[in-house]
């Protein structure tokens, strides 16, 4: 029978290395995707993902199970991503290159060239528009879109109320719609 997150956390706290490895296995892909959504650079995202699990391991003794493990983990990931972004504000060129690389990789498996061009342009505009959002607005969009998390969970991760999450999402979507008026 598969152990719950909380059971694995308790085993990890008791020094069971395999239990912590199982927790990392469960969440590393999801955590990486959330970080990538916030940072848009694969190398930086990988580095922050690794740092997230390392910090989680360091702080695991203090985790009492008041919230679910994944909201606690995402909180670490989001905070580290926002800090990293503020520290090393990437230039538009570097950002552009990372997006172009991503799009080229996707193009390799594309079938319809004209549809692909339109999709490519839309994605490019969308990623630009997301990048222009404030870290707080970007975080709600990413957590809702990638993880489909509830407003309650998002609020727990970001340390705000469900009402604030709803209002931030509304504002962020409105901003994105304004910037992509010609495309959507």
């Amino acid at each position: 029978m598969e152990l719950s997150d909380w059971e694995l956390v308790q085993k990890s706290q008791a020094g069971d290395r395999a239990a912590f490895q199982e927790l990392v296995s469960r969440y590393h892909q999801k955590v990486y995707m959330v970080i990538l959504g916030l940072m848009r650079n694969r190398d930086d995202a990988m580095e922050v993902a690794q740092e997230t699990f390392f910090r989680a391991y360091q702080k695991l003794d203090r985790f009492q199970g008041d919230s679910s493990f994944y909201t606690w983990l995402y909180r670490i990931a989001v905070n580290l991503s926002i800090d990293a972004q503020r520290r090393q504000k990437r230039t538009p060129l570097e950002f552009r290159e990372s997006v172009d690389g991503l799009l080229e990789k996707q193009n390799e498996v594309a079938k319809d060239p004209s549809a692909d061009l339109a999709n490519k342009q839309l994605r490019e505009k969308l990623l630009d528009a997301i990048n222009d959002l404030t870290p707080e607005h970007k975080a709600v969009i990413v957590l809702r879109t990638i993880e489909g998390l509830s407003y309650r969970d998002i609020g727990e991760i970001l340390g705000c109320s469900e009402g604030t999450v709803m209002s931030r999402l509304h504002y962020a979507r409105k901003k994105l719609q304004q910037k992509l008026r010609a495309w959507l």
Partner: protein
Amino acid sequence: MTGCENVRGFLGAFLDGELPPGESQSVERHVRQCPVCRSERERLDRLNTALREALGAGGEVAWDPFWRGLERRLEAKRRWPATMAEWLESAFAPAKLAWAIPLVLVALIGLLSLESVPPIGRRDRNSFAAVESINAYGQNVALFRDSETRTTVIWLEQNQEGQDEAPTTPEPSPAF
């Protein structure tokens, strides 16, 4: 919740399934009847789809470096307390401490004898200045020595008066 503006404020939450059942039904009813709000709902749907496609890409990565790096860091963290304890134990074990006593004494004596370290209880600089006239050559020599910065300045200046008084036959050089 009947006005278009009001409904549009909740369309996102409605599509996210985050509205209470009563409000959700009210929005649904309005959207079914109002073409403007219906079109707004479709736009929002398209935005959500585009967001999922754009943000969902990029997950295919090689995880080996991630696992290797994480394992290395975790292993270092696990080892650290044990390594530290071992070091403290070996360094401060009484039998092994004996060698450190003369070493510390020598280091202290060396430190105190350094010119740059001021004597304990006295913080003034050990420096002096002197000016000497060399009448025979019509020169003034000024000497300044500062022990703190380990600087010695020797200043040689032509003495106009001395030049006038200088004898025609040179005398032996004064000894310094």
